[in-house]
């Protein structure tokens, strides 16, 4: 009998500093943890506990997985001080992940805010491996400041890819920034997306998800075509401990990516 709560040992291979507050941790689990884009894993910091993260790496890479982590609380503080070589733990994957089957043959609008681009990167990388199967991939990404944009080194390559359109914005510019200024919804004006044939997938702070959703609805997106990555406090991963529910759904088991049509009536949807 395998204990469902037992983590798989994983060696921390590399720590990549993305921004002053965000790092990517490259982990090599003892046995591969094979996931679909959007599914999440529980990362164990030995002795301290677990926290849920959706891998930011491609689901097509199976021997390693990456999680991109904002320094935000007790556990992530400790993670940010960790050096390569230490043993951590991984449990999962959990959840349904992004609805890839629905996205094939469609235009896909990906809207990310801050560290919310992390789960979306997994989707973006998966899509790029078979970009011909999608009509178009539009990536709209915003962060607080230019220094807080994650994966900056990848942007040039992403934008060059055929079928990919990429736009960035920051809440507050700093010297040298010549791009857009404003919250991520400014990138939704003049979208150039065939809305009836498009799906939108968004991840970021819940307040951002709220305004992105409202704007998408205004633009004519159907609730059925909007997917939100609601990465809340998932814990057991199996729909039992009861801490991550959004309405009747358990984000850990039924999400963390949920269709807006299914949750639009939930009273505390956006906190």
């Amino acid at each position: 009998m395998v204990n469902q709560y037992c983590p798989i040992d994983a060696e921390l291979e590399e720590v990549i500093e993305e921004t002053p507050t965000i790092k990517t941790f490259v982990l090599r689990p003892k046995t591969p943890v094979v996931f679909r884009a959007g599914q999440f894993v529980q990362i164990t910091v030995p002795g301290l506990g677990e926290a849920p993260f959706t891998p930011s790496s491609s689901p097509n890479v199976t021997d390693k997985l990456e999680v991109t982590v904002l320094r935000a609380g007790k556990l992530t503080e400790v993670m940010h001080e960790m050096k390569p070589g230490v043993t951590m733990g991984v449990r999962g994957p959990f959840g349904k992940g992004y609805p890839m089957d629905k996205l094939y043959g469609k235009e896909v609008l990906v809207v990310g805010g801050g560290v919310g681009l992390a789960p979306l990167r997994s989707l973006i990388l998966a899509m790029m491996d078979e970009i011909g199967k999608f009509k178009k991939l539009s990536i709209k990404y915003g962060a607080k400041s230019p220094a807080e944009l994650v994966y900056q080194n990848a942007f040039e390559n992403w934008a060059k890819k055929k079928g990919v359109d990429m736009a960035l914005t920051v809440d507050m510019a700093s010297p040298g920034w010549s791009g857009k200024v404003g919250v991520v919804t400014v990138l939704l004006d003049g979208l150039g997306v065939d809305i009836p044939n498009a799906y939108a997938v968004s991840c970021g702070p819940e307040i951002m998800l709220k305004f992105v959703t409202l704007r998408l609805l205004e633009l004519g997106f159907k609730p059925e075509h909007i997917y939100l990555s609601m990465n809340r406090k998932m814990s057991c991963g199996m729909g039992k401990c009861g801490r991550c529910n959004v309405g009747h759904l358990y984000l850990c088991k039924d999400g963390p990516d949920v269709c807006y049509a299914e949750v639009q009536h939930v009273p505390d949807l956006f906190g």
Partner: protein
Amino acid sequence: MSRAELFISTTDLAELLRVLGNEGQLYITTRPVASEPPDLHYRPYSTQSTPEFAYGDIRPVEPLKSFLLEVRERLLEYPGTEPAAEKPPAKQIIVGLKQCDIESLKTYDSVFTQGEFKDDSYVAKRQATTLISGDCPKPADFCFCTMLGGRPYCTEGFDLNMSQVEGGYVIEVGSDKGEKIVSASKSLFKPASAGQLDERSASRKKATDALNIINKEYELKKTRQQILAAKEPSAAWPEQLGYCVEDGACLFACPTCYCFLLYDQQGKLKGKYERARSWDVCMYAGYSRMAGGGTPRPRLVDRFRHRFMHKFSYFHDNYKLESCSGCGRCFVGCGANIDVRKVFKALDE
């Protein structure tokens, strides 16, 4: 399928308890002398300690979940698993629980034994547990099982059920486990007489009628799901929250509340850690709080409403079952006298 209906005398029941005490860890309901009002509590029964069994008018204070999902449970040690953690749970026999507790197992079984992920620890404990229930001859004014479709007596889910009659108890066998207990102590049982069965029926009817009178004033115009489906939160929510001090007594005492906190702590040996879980309360401010301090339900009234939404709406969506058995423990334990029936009545206005 109906099984045998038997009779056991009060003296023979004492003998049966002695037999069961050797079968596994036996817990029976007792009435502590100093207890006022005369609440029932479970006590362990062993050769060293043979407390007196009390049949009781209503359910004991402790919810049945205490025996199946420990208040604090050590799940594993890591890195590396310890074989001792995997040993099967000890056999336990629980005597004296009532219908609202048997009913609460529907919630627990739905969550922990069904679907993609089964909870191995719960499944093993459930299998190792024998349930001997009893009727509720005199419901209290906080009992409302009948409003949830229940009755003041069990019709399913038990291994043996006891109904007190003159000189002893009518015993109904509800499962193979129950059948085995009876076959092993055949001499203690005899077939129940028509008179004893009539006495049981009369007692059950009396209790059901009493519950109907007690709960008449709480009858609702709409279903609880219809009431909770209202788009805008009712002004009744903050009113009903009243003087709630967020102590969580309602949910710790609740036999259907099952949510838990998963946490890690230092193990016994250096370099080893333990993963454990403990009961938790969704009305606590930190319950769904995330790193950075954000929480979907920052106000107590949001969490209060969530408690009702989860039990009566979301759970119903997922399992076609309301996660409440009408035992009234939440009201009895509540420092602010919050009564589920009154909350719904106010929302239904």
